[in-house]
């Protein structure tokens, strides 16, 4: 079975500093992995996805993630945080070919001036 674990429930960063959100996955085969973002009182939006092509995946708003099979990780990074990055972020693994997803518990990101 596929699953993901987000290692931090809350991350606080200063504006202009790097952001790192950690995610480990468990899968018996090469997984499809995603990062979704949820701004307050909004639905979820896809940030980026890994589907066994390039291991470094670039997404929207300057985010990127690197798939590391040896570490079973898919950490999300951004070089310089912006106030608008304050949101909840979910690491997600696809569990079947129809698109069913398993969500991590989420990481709440706070950006301070």
């Amino acid at each position, binding site marked *: 079975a596929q699953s993901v674990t987000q290692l931090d*429930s809350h991350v606080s960063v200063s504006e202009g500093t790097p952001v790192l959100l950690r995610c480990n996955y468990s899968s018996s085969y090469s997984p*499809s992995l*995603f990062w979704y973002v949820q701004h307050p009182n909004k*639905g979820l*939006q896809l940030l980026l996805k890994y589907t066994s092509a390039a291991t470094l995946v670039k997404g929207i708003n300057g985010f990127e993630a690197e798939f590391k099979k040896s570490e079973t990780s898919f950490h999300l990074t951004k070089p310089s945080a912006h106030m608008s990055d304050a949101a909840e972020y*979910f690491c997600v693994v696809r569990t079947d070919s*129809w*698109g069913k*997803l398993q969500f991590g518990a989420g990481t709440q990101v706070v950006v301070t001036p």
Partner: protein
Amino acid sequence: IAGITQAPTSQILAAGRRMTLRCTQDMRHNAMYWYRQDLGLGLRLIHYSNTAGTTGKGEVPDGYSVSRANTDDFPLTLASAVPSQTSVYFCASSDGTANTGELFFGEGSRLTVL
């Protein structure tokens, strides 16, 4: 604007009452899903439908039912609401192909059961 429409956006409901959350998509996606979001638990799948006329149970299906009479609509029904069903409910859809796997989400329905 194309996408997923959910209704109502918010509802307060007495325990024991029946409630249907509506979900409509205009992207002609085959697959649709209902998730509930609770603090610290992320999103958990309630029910899903891979194509019109078929449905399946997700991780937390008890107390909920769905139907998929056509491609566009996927209502979620709580036959007799209980306080533990207080949550934010998200409907989502995908094209169901292996090429994307991306889900498109509605903006959620906040349900409070008293």
